[in-house]
């Protein structure tokens, strides 16, 4: 039997992947609509362990003067806080950390396409920057971005990698053309039409990416005057990541960015002795609350510098910044009652809080916010996200 001619698709029902991953052809169906021009740049930030609610939203009232939020004072009028927002489909615990921008868990009932907000934006928009999107994670190679095929995007996981991605030289046009020619020959000569459809679709996807790279090969990256030296500690490198992201936005190198701030072990800050994760399970122990507060202070300091910096550069109105505390309650590792901040992007902010629960019942799930972000970015006509209908347009647009 010639394996090239073996139709593996015939045996697909026997596979035990739980139907999690859609085949690449789902992309064509999902992107059947015409591509749109993004009206806004979009930055999505996930803080893996979330924020201490008492420091983020102490009273759930209309004040933005909490310990963490007051750092964003220069842009208070251009931000909104969502009280008690959540998405029940996200489930909880570490293994569901991937659900923050997909609004669904791989371990729950899966809607296809299993796609993250950033990748939906990327798939449905015209590419106007050298890098269509940037998926970044401060530690680990498991990121937050899932493309239209449900495949996880390997994140950029070091400052150097991000720097090279945004500001490094592209491959030469000659070498890309040569690659394309060889790939076409490979497809013609060595991939039988009867061979596995899924594998052939992967080849087609590579071809699409290559063609896109060829289009952009002549665009040279800008020269930037930014020097950095990694601390080799994922949390302490956060300001470098954010500086590079800011430069990338400013220099129009990438309009869609995701940053996953992981709970790396040690955080060498004065007053912090336990690891980030150990402190997160604080159980209201004062010493852990204190240490976790110090770590979160560091993170919110840097995030506020980032957002306030965008405002100073007059970029904030054109940039949607979503900062999501992945876990609503770090101690329980619960995804309920998340701490979420939306800044910039030209929304009707008014420096307010939007209650997302009414007498304990969820009235505005996270997916509604994502749909409104899609609308504000130029993706009109979408009636929901991750199979969850509804939006917050009336409140935010």
């Amino acid at each position, binding site marked *: 039997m010639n394996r*090239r001619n073996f139709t593996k698709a015939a045996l697909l029902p026997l596979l035990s992947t739980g139907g999690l991953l859609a085949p690449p052809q789902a992309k064509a169906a999902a992107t059947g609509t015409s591509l749109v021009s993004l009206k806004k740049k979009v930055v999505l930030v996930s803080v893996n362990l979330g924020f201490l609610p008492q420091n983020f939203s102490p009273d759930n009232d209309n004040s933005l003067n909490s310990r963490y939020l007051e750092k964003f004072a220069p842009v208070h009028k251009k931000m909104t806080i969502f009280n008690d927002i959540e998405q029940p489909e996200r489930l909880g615990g570490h293994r569901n950390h991937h659900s923050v921008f997909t609004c669904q868990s791989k*371990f729950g009932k899966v809607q296809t396409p299993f796609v993250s907000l950033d990748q939906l934006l990327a798939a449905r928009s015209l590419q106007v920057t050298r890098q269509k999107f940037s998926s970044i994670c401060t530690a680990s190679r498991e990121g937050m971005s899932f493309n239209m095929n449900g*495949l996880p*995007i390997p994140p950029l996981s070091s400052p150097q990698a991000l720097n090279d991605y945004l500001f490094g030289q592209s491959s030469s046009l000659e070498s890309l053309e040569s690659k394309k020619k060889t790939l076409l020959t490979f497809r*013609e000569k*060595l991939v039988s039409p009867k061979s596995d459809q899924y*594998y052939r679709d992967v080849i087609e996807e590579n071809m699409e990416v290559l063609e896109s790279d060829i289009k952009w090969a002549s665009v040279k990256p800008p020269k930037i005057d930014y*020097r950095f030296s990694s601390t080799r500690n994922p949390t302490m490198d956060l300001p470098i990541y954010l500086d590079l992201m800011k430069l990338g936005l400013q220099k129009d190198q990438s309009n869609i960015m995701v940053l996953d701030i992981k709970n790396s*072990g040690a955080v060498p800050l004065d007053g912090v002795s336990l690891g980030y994760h150990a402190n997160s399970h604080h*159980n209201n122990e004062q010493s852990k609350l204190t240490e976790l507060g110090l770590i979160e202070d560091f993170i919110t300091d840097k995030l506020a510098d980032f957002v306030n910096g965008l405002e100073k550069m007059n970029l904030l109105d054109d940039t949607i910044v979503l900062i999501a505390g992945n876990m609503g309650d770090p101690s329980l590792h619960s995804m309920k009652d998340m701490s979420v901040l939306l800044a910039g992007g030209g929304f009707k902010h008014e420096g307010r809080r939007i209650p997302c629960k009414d007498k304990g019942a969820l009235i505005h799930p996270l997916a509604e916010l994502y749909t409104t972000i899609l609308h504000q970015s130029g993706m009109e006509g979408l009636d929901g996200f991750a199979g969850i209908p509804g939006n917050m347009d009336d409140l935010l647009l």
Partner: protein
Amino acid sequence: MKAALVLPAIFFVASLPLLAAPEDNAATESSYKDAHAIFKDSCVRCHGGEKTKGGINLVSMLERDISFDDVDDWSEVYSQIQSGNMPPEDEEERLNPKEEDTLLRALQDKLGNSRNYRSERMISPDEYKYSIADLFQLDLKNYDPIGDLYNFVSPEHKFYTVQSNRMMNRFYFTALMDGTERILREYQDGNQPLQGKARSPQLTEKEIRIRAQRSAKWQEAIEQLTEELSEDGVLSPEDLAVVENLRYGQLQNRLEGEIARRTPKSTNYTTTLRFPMKMSPKIKDTTDGFFEYDTDHWGIRGKSWTENDNMPIMLLGGYGQQFRILPPGKYRLTIRATATDRETIANVPEVQDKEAAWSNNGRLKSEPCKLVVFKDANRTKTTSDPLTHATPVGAFYIEDDKIRDYTLDVSFHWNTQLGVLFENGVTNVLKAEGKHPIMHFDENDNVVYAKAERKLPTIRIYDVTLERTGDVAMGDLFIDEADSFDDHAAKEKIKTFIARAYLDDAPEYSDFYDSLRDSGAPPLDAYVDTLKWMFMTSDYLYIDGSSDDFNGQLRYASYSLLKTVPSKGFAKSFQAYQSGEMSVEKFTNFIVEDQAFENFVSSFSRQWLRLSEIDQNAPDRVKYAPFYDDNLEVEFEEESASYIEHLFTNNRKLSELVDSDYHFINDKLAVLYGIENVRHNDIRRVDAGVVNERMGILSHAGFMAASSNGVEDLPFRRAKWMSENILDKAIPPPPDEIDVTAFGKAEKQDFASRIKAHINNESCSECHKLLDPIALDIQIFDGLGRLKDEEFSAGEAEKHLEGLRDKVTSSDRRIASAFTKNLITFVNGRKPGINDLQIVSQILDETKSDEYRAKDILRGVISHYFPQLE
């Protein structure tokens, strides 16, 4: 040959019940009804309706009538009943043996037919890497241009489910291409391995000034060297005439050319190249405290800093040295050296840990000075971030005050650099003196080099000789002469590749090459591209156990049992085994003695013990400094792999996984674990002695680091792994929300009191009644597997060690069962189905009389999954 060896269904295990005969249908139907009734009476209370513990909902599963759609869940049910875990021990009504048998038989009848389980799969990332390394004869330990390909596939494809063609994605596709490209592009005459992209360092102004000063000094050193070389006749007067006009790098190239001219390219010869190692005396001004120089020697002082990496001092090649590379070949390195100034450690004032800092916790006092020889090798974490790392190739313990020769034989497949490093861990002078001993800046920001305040132990090197003893074999695919490489040579090599990879010689390959040539590619480029893309074909990437030709079966067996492409030896043995000329015992011996079995074990242990997660849980630099000081990550992996390989090669009892009277360690690991008198650089078996504070793989530093979070050890995570992988008791995933409030209500806040407090919480207790006893004991190990001496007294530690040992005593069958399940998963590349679990049971029965030995278990796997022809 192919026709004679066709196997209609070799992987259908003859001993398993196949589809029931018609006359048995009535009885089978009756047994299904019985099984339904037993499930409803004994299991549904916790696994259906309101409660679906462990994610198992038997109500809905039974509604679908034991369907293959639920095969993963039913396999889990089967496994738990088979292992005697369900219903749990504390349930009032447990299953009697007859009921257990009824349930297992019903599941076997419905789902146990091996026809339902595919044996076709994509080769795993490690199998891809090992096969390409073997085809090109790469030594991955020293030169790894491919990196960890598991970074590019979804986490669910680790260890198993490589059966899924959905493992392929565009990132993985690109990673495979990049890795192969790197090898192939280096596979040309005279090419040296790529050293990664040169990146502009992000330097501060101070650093730039320092470099400029150093550069000037090195330039002087090169001038000095040039003078010496001209005296030795290495450089001709003509060369010298142009030297003044050459930049530093050009001079290096020129000298390199000289060495190449003096080095015959091939055939048998022996030539001695004597490398002058006298540095310019002026260099000592810039590096006082690190090097010392005198007229007849130079020295390396035992000093480094926790915050910095220990970089070898290059002997041959590298920054500021006289030759950039060594050509491939076999060499004998001789270093004439002595160790001096050891007494300085004894004179360090006894103030505030000074002694500990200066002598690295007594290490320099108790051990001779250690000189490690490194080669600069290309290793990469991923194909997108190639890095050049130094890899140790040997080490000497240098005698005190006695000048003698130390000799090491080394061989290199690739152009290589050599370096040495004084390595007895870090002697942290920074902490001892409270100030930087090497350099600081004056008020004008100029660099000032301060002399160290006292002499440090020093290895003095008087001479270095490198003797080239011969060539290394480079393999059939290597291009010797790029200039004369033509279409004929290319096609011959492609044929060789097809034969080596045991692929069918399809005309498409030749067509592909011709197309590339037609489009203008020169023969060498067309050859490289053809091979690169042949690695990406379904023919190469897929293996199929039900293949109807010998090559297909051979490839499947080789990738399953050795995780690589078949070698000639494997093909011969497999053919002899299949035809009955070789017994299963002999074939099993062949497998474990084959060199490639090292890869099998290495990949197995790395994935089973999750050693690749060390990176994600990188130990804290302050709390676990030895991890960085001694560059221990490589040792961690080797320790576990060597230990498990020993079990196979010596057919040891599997209970020794967690309880043995030996370790597999080297001097570095011995220091880490506090084991004395280990003085060898390589990891090898060491008897544990009377007092054994280790617990086999459970206390291996790699496993401990991977199961920590970098700062804290995580006893529950470790307990879960032990429960599932040693005691064969599955633990469901944690709940979506983790209620830790009970912890806070504990009377005391020590670990034991806290876990005692939460056990009454119903949502916790189901799993934690299994986890807590293990966690309570395993908590004595810190994040690197050392006993927590400061937290536990010797008596307490012994008590907890005994507790752990008690848990594994009398669990031999469970240990063997858990191991066999993992082994079968790893061999087959898929989750075990009910047919596999039946085989597990049979293998355990077959190996019980000899107390479940590792090689016997492997023999069982081979005989059941790769049966001989009848």
